């Protein structure tokens, strides 16, 4: 839309306009991600400190040490970058960027507000889950190529853990998708408009439980405590990160925080109403495109703020859990997944299915595929009208 505007208004070549807009979008997303990583690095230390009855960083940048992240970054950049002699150099260098790219690509399909999404994908949910799963590749490659036993152990644990937890995670994601009847994240978000009771997490008791399973699986798939066995500093020195230092190390960490934020955001959209607050403030104030374009934009901005807050709260909860719970053993991790999460998620799936189809009318208007046929969706229109083959 903007690219068209640029082309017609300023006569830029099309490729330049499109490329420029894409670049700007990427930069915005990168900025959000970097900012989030920096903020969370600081916050993690503060939260850890508070929970452990310490103060955490206090000096750098004033009262709360809020420039601590910058200081850390400078330190890491200045550190010597080591590559072990036995290591597989190419993969060793590649690994952090694989992780970071995966974490970043998630943001491409993540809507921040109504229509505020870099690439509006019809299969957004699947895309995000698939890309988020790619992050583990970096970890495994890093662990393998370090030519260190600790790293390899860490990487293998990570692989087993992530592959296992993708099953319940996928099931948990599918449940709200089933209720919503679409894979389009923007549509799912807009479906939960209105008061907070319209959020999918309150749609039925099964979805409520599903949300907590989702949160648990998110912890595991982003490799956070109590599931951070890949690092496990008490057993494996630093797991897959043992041989990394300096900038590459920091890239891994940015990827981790980035994906934490992204997964919290996904959870917010799927369960917690996305960019719609508990009170329909924007509607009350008349902030909609129907009134004026600027008002509508303001409403979207409010929604974006809402969304960022929810995702932020999710990350805060993750930190809270990290510094509260002890780390699990690897067999306990697998038990939690295969013996509890998977059956529970499957049961929730069945329960939601029964609830949605057995009960007449849930809290949300049903727009299941079968219902959609009755309402004559666009694809039932004659094909010739859509300019396809006759």
């Amino acid at each position, binding site marked *: 839309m903007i690219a068209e505007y640029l082309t017609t208004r300023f006569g830029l070549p099309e490729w330049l306009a499109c490329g420029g807009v894409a670049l700007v979008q990427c930069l915005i997303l990168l900025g959000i991600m970097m900012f989030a990583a920096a903020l969370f690095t600081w916050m993690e230390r503060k939260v850890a400190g508070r929970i452990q009855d310490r103060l955490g960083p206090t000096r750098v940048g004033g009262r709360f040490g809020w420039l601590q992240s910058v200081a850390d970054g400078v330190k890491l950049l200045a550190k010597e970058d080591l590559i072990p002699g036995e290591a597989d150099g190419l993969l060793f260098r590649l690994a952090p960027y694989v992780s970071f790219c995966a974490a970043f690509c998630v943001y491409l399909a993540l809507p921040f507000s109504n229509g505020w999404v870099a690439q509006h994908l019809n299969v957004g949910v*699947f895309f995000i889950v698939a890309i988020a799963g790619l992050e583990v590749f970096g970890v495994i490659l890093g662990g393998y190529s370090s030519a260190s036993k600790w790293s390899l152990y860490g990487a293998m644990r990570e692989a087993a853990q992530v592959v296992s937890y993708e099953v319940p995670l996928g099931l948990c994601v599918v449940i709200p998708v089933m209720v919503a009847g679409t894979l389009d994240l923007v549509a799912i978000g807009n479906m939960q408009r209105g008061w907070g009771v319209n959020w999918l997490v309150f749609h039925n008791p099964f979805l409520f439980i599903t949300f907590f399973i989702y949160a648990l699986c998110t912890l595991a798939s982003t490799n956070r405590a109590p599931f951070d066995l890949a690092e496990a500093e008490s057993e494996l020195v630093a797991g897959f990160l043992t041989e990394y230092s300096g900038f590459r190390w920091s890239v891994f960490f940015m990827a981790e925080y980035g994906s934490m934020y992204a997964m919290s955001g996904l959870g917010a959209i799927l369960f917690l109403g996305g960019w719609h607050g508990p009170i329909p403030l924007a509607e009350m104030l008349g902030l909609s495109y129907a009134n004026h374009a600027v008002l509508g934009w303001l409403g979207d901005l409010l929604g974006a703020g809402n969304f960022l807050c929810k995702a932020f709260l999710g990350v805060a909860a993750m930190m809270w859990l990290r510094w509260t719970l002890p780390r699990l053993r690897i067999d306990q991790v697998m038990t939690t997944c295969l013996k509890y999460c998977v059956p529970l998620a499957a049961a929730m799936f069945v329960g939601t299915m029964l609830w949605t189809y057995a009960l007449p009318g849930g809290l949300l208007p049903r727009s299941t595929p079968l219902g959609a046929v009755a309402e004559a969706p666009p694809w039932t229109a004659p094909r010739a009208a859509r300019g396809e083959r006759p």
Partner: protein
Amino acid sequence: MINWHTCFFLLFATITCAFAVAVVVSANVVRMAVCLIASLAAVSGLYFLAAADFVAAMQLMIYVGGTLVLLVFGVMLTARGPFVSMKITPANWLMAGLAGGALLILLLCAATSVDAWKTAAVAASAPAAEGGHTVAPIGMALLGIRVDALEQANPALRGGIAGYLLPFEIVSVHLLVVLVGAAHLARARRRRRPAEAVPDASRSA
């Protein structure tokens, strides 16, 4: 006028083919896996370009997990030395190359043999935006209703008979059976000593 579709196609096709060749020439199993996943990810990009968004997402999702497991197995089963490679003789390379090359030539001939395949119908404009909404139709097709074939003249075919409910169920059951079978095959057993594993008697038979 730049054709974006062509641009992205060239990009993804290049990545796909290059990494596929890299899989062939690489000797290290982990690097092979990395190349493979790059190639497959690019294939999924091609799917997006061909207006198959759901298939693309599935490709990404399933092959990521699948290749990840491949990778892990590769690492675990070849972990005796840090980077084990198994060399083959140049004669083998030649044989394989000749066979593969002949097959490639054959396929290329076949791919370019039909004229209608070489002329794009409406590809001049970006088609993905229009055609890339296949999630719901595929879901309906798997439930046995072909919403893309509603104007089908034959009422028997239109009535959902042409749907994919039965194959879907068959594939589901097949997957279940395969999972059980794989778990059975891979169940933990007493590990034999290497000396027993390759008895001399069987070699001389």
